[in-house]
């Protein structure tokens, strides 16, 4: 039975593998070292090099033949312009992999990932992970100092066995970096979010189907839609423009016209032809935010446009063609909207094939720090002034930002605003703990004000009545109860009415009761008078 052949696939390291003269043998050159292991016999070495590194590759070929006469060394020129350009390198290596006559019945393959640019290493990893290279990975390391000569060490990693913890985590990180394109380079740590981004990346590249992004306001839907567009554009999957509109801003006739365009004279004010947003997004990407706000007529037209690529501009009898990728955003539960008859079931079915729910900031507290860095950089670029936290301030910010009372109701929008404000107020470009504290006072106030839940509204009422400081001195237990009591009082005409409402259950079991008195006593514990509640504006 013929022995299975071992084939190594690798790139020369222009720095590590370089070496001239006899002294090169005293240097650890990873590619040559592969031929020097007593327990690794390579039958064939496929050395992939850039045309400009031909000389280096030939040199390595010669040296490999010396140390490893058992190895046939083949050189392959691969063409990619910039060795740090992820797209180009991946493309070139992918092309090589697709064309290579892998013979897995008779040969075993190893992909050497110690050499090549960082980008090339990641690409080799990804191509192996995706089985374009049906190979195991080999990572080499130099000899320890004490040995000073020798081929060093190597590890073979079989990705199929998933036993590649340390290396994998390094590469997982690298892969994340590649995927961080979608995250605008923010090294987010929230695992759920990162998985989500990974999926979105795959879907965005593999599919032209509509994508639905859900999640609370400020979770980053708009931002992400734009990044998806840029990703698709970089992969030449779209050639048109990015068009974005918030459907909440489209009302009435204007909505139809804005989306689908109109003919001159279609209605009063239509003084010229208007192509409409769908047309503007031809061969590009259309992001419809808050799609739940769209009227039923527009929904019908949009459905047709998605399904057939054609629609009718207002006042026109000629259909217009547009081929666009649709991304829809919503913070509403569209299924509930369907039940209420406010959203078309068929349109929902069409757009929720790929639904991704973006978590709010409260669900990604570990991402506050990386986003903080990003926002500061962003601010620095935009305003051309560098702003930094001092250590204590950063610590304070993270602590307060991740505390249970940090509501982050506006999510990343809040974070962005907070950084902008602090950066603006920072004296000499240093954000101090005082600036942080002031900012959180502002945020807390805003969160209470913006609150739209009954509980939050009640709390806001309480704060108005007794003041922020007094409210902050209440236990949560008392605060919630008191807020609700005050809300009931506000809605009641008399103290007795309010008492009856508040003690509606217990009063039925008592022979006599004085609910008004009980309520007055309760309020007085907090120094609150009935009159002051009623006189509150």
């Amino acid at each position, binding site marked *: 039975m013929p*022995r299975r052949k071992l084939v190594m696939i690798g790139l020369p390291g222009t720095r590590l593998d370089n070496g001239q*003269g*006899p*002294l090169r*043998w*005293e240097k650890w050159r990873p590619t040559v070292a592969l*031929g*020097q*292991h*007593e*327990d*690794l*016999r390579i039958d064939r070495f496929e050395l992939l090099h850039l045309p400009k590194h031909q000389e280096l590759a030939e040199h390595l070929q010669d*040296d490999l033949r*010396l*140390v*490893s*006469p*058992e*190895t046939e060394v083949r050189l392959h020129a691969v063409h990619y312009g910039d060795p740090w350009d992820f797209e180009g390198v991946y493309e070139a290596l992918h092309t090589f992999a697709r064309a290579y006559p892998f013979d897995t019945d008779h040969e075993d393959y190893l992909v050497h990932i110690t050499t090549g640019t960082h980008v090339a290493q990641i690409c080799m990893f990804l191509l192996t992970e995706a089985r374009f290279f049906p190979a195991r990975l080999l990572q080499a390391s130099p000899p320890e100092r004490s040995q*000073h*000569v*020798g*081929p060093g060490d190597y590890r073979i990693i079989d990705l199929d066995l998933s036993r590649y913890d340390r290396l994998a985590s390094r590469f997982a990180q690298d892969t994340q970096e590649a995927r961080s394109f979608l995250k605008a380079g923010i090294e987010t740590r929230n695992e759920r979010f990162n998985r989500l981004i990974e999926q979105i990346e795959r879907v965005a590249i593999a599919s032209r189907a509509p994508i639905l992004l859900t999640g609370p306001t400020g979770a980053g839907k708009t931002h992400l839609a734009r990044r998806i567009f840029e990703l698709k554009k970089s992969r030449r999957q779209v050639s048109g423009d990015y068009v974005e509109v918030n459907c909440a801003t489209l009302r009435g006739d204007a909505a139809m016209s804005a989306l689908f365009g109109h003919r001159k004279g279609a209605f009063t004010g239509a003084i010229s032809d208007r192509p409409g947003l769908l047309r503007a997004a031809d061969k590009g990407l259309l992001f419809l935010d808050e799609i739940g706000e769209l009227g039923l007529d527009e929904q019908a037209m949009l459905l047709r446009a998605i399904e057939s690529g054609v629609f009718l501009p207002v006042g026109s009898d000629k259909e217009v063609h547009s081929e666009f990728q649709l991304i829809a955003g919503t913070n509403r539960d569209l299924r509930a909207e369907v039940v209420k008859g406010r959203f078309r079931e068929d349109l929902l079915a069409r757009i929720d094939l790929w639904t991704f729910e973006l978590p709010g900031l409260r669900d990604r507290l570990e991402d506050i720090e990386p986003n903080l860095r990003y926002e500061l950089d962003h601010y620095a670029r935009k305003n051309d002034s560098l702003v930094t936290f001092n250590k204590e301030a950063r610590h304070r910010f993270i602590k307060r930002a991740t505390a249970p009372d940090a509501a982050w109701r506006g999510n990343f929008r809040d974070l962005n605003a907070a950084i902008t404000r602090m950066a603006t107020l920072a004296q000499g470009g240093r954000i101090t703990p005082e600036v942080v504290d002031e900012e959180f006072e502002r945020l807390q106030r805003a969160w209470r004000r913006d609150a739209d839940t009954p509980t939050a509204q009640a709390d806001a009422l309480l704060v108005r009545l007794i003041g922020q400081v007094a409210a902050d001195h209440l236990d949560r237990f008392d605060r919630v109860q008191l807020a609700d009591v005050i809300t009931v009082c506000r809605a009641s005409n008399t103290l007795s009415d309010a008492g009856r409402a508040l003690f509606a259950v217990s009063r039925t079991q008592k022979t006599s009761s004085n609910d008004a008195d009980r309520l007055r006593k309760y309020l007085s514990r907090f120094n609150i008078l009935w009159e002051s509640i009623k006189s509150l504006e």
Partner: protein
Amino acid sequence: MLKIDGAMGEGGGQVLRTSLTLSLVTGTPFEIEGIRANRSRPGLLRQHLTAVEAAAAVGGAVVEGAELRSSSLRFAPKGLRAGEYHFAVGTAGSAGLVFQTVMPALLKASGPSRLVLEGGTHNPSAPPFEFLASAYAPLVRRLGGGLELELERPGFYPAGGGRFVARITPPAGGELRPLALLERGGEVEEREACALVAHLPRSIGEREARKLVDLLGWPGGEVRVEEAESSAGPGNCVWIRAKWPYVTEVFSGFGEKGVKAEDVAKAAVDAYRHYLSVDAPVGVHMTDQLMLLLALAGAGRFRSLPPSLHARTNAEVISRFLPVDVRFEAEEGPGRVWSVRVVSREA
């Protein structure tokens, strides 16, 4: 099928190599387990695999288990074939060891052979080429075999790439003659010491030469520096050759990073002095090889330095394949001389 325990004695690569040689010579198939069991990285490494493949080529053998790190191997030769062979050893491993594995067998083949061997020729883990050419080959010729060795270029660790050619002619009549090698035969007839430097500053060789002159007390004309331009990579070796009427021996020291040139010279001189301290003609390295050749001849005797575990292990392997015993006896007296006798069990 003969079973060999790879862990016997010193439990290294020599058990395998000797087994291969004797299997080729006798046509006896064998199975070895626990290959290199006593080594830190047990099993077959590349240089052993090359030796197995070389033996398989020479003997047309059917081989099972010839895989890296394999701890067992089955080897069944179908018949020796004289001819032209080319064997290359990777990792600058010793080409000499591969040569010594197949050479004795080719002495038993039906015609002359020519071997081209590539790899390390000056490798610290085996005697250097000069040992093979000046010490080993003359003994083979004394036994009736024809052996000419020619170095084309040296190969040092780590680059390797050395190359030498061996021309082997089986003895007239097909059988090696027994030999008794009991004395050096008098005074030194010829001697030289050489500091071989390849792609390293000549001053290293000069320092070594000075040290050699200093330690040996030889006139400058017998000590030289040689620059090996043809070597593929850098390297340094010091060897001392001394020829007596009945025997020639070669002693060596190897340059390494972090080892002073003077110490390299001293290592060779120490080996030489150790040999001289015992009044016996056969040195440590030669013992292994000579007992094998005598076993092929059917009988013989020599006097040597105290045998190593290596030698005793080799003797044990020999007795498994051939109807001979190798007997070691320390001679009476303070001289630490040992008598090694190869005797037939059949007689």
